[in-house]
């Protein structure tokens, strides 16, 4: 049964929600609009369209979705929090979030989310591997410049031509 307040324009009630909530826009309209349009394009593509049609999204629809997104995050997080607390753990994990999705009847989101999580973890492994390699190289060059203040890599290259006691360590580092 529709609420009687709804006789007012929908934007008033939606805006009241927004103002009553956070001071700053935590889910900005532009961002929400982009996500909604992405969803529409997926729907279009699934229905046999070219997936490139430009959809319009009414301002009130964007506001509604923005509020829906905020409430969803709170709802999902609170549910995941309960699972976490029951298991007597101190930190909410991604698995808690997945469990919460099932609990709240959003099971259809579980598989895509798992796929995204796999990609995310794989990307992070790559990034931390690169970080380790970069810091190894940096450490090697610092050893070579031992005794010289604030040496850059140019100085290190010049050093390599003049044999020095510390050079073997640098050569060893550079070779790797």
């Amino acid at each position, binding site marked *: 049964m529709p609420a009687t307040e709804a006789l007012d324009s*929908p934007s008033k009630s*939606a805006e009241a929600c927004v103002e009553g909530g956070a001071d700053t826009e935590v889910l900005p309209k532009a961002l929400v609009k982009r996500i909604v349009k992405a969803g*529409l394009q997926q729907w279009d593509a699934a229905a046999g369209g070219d997936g490139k049609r430009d959809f319009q999204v009414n301002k009130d629809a964007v506001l509604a979705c923005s509020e*829906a997104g905020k409430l969803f995050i709170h709802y999902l*997080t609170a549910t995941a*929090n309960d699972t976490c607390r029951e298991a007597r753990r101190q*930190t909410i*994990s991604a698995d*808690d979030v997945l469990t919460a999705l099932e609990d709240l009847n959003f099971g259809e989101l579980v598989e895509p989310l798992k796929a995204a999580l796999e990609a995310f973890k794989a990307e992070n492994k790559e990034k931390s591997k690169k970080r380790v390699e970069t810091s190894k190289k940096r450490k090697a060059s610092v050893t070579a410049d031992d005794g010289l203040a604030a040496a850059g890599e140019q100085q290190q290259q010049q050093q390599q031509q003049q044999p020095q006691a510390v050079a073997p360590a640098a050569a060893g580092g550079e070779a790797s």
Partner: protein
Amino acid sequence: MGDATSPTSHEGVSPRKGGPAALLITANRVKNLVKEDTEIKPLSGDACFALGKATELFLESIAAKAAAHMQVAGRDAALEYSDVAAVVAETEALDFLQDIIPQTVKAAALLPAMS
């Protein structure tokens, strides 16, 4: 969902930039939102990503369902509030949204009942 290679673009719509691991609702946004609720335990990095991503998927799914209503209403590519409200009303899992996204009724429809 083969949109992984869409280039970054600010004017047009890039459906899925950067592939499935890219996040529009970033970890910082999630943390700021969750901070408001002081009862919540700390989130792991993966949980932050999962929450942001789940919300994106959630909104995309609502959009797709609302599109069906849009079509029925004879609109081609213009989503309106009523489409979203209709999805909320007809989906049990979305009951938690019924108060903030109510279906609106034209005054004309209610006046006869009131008089």
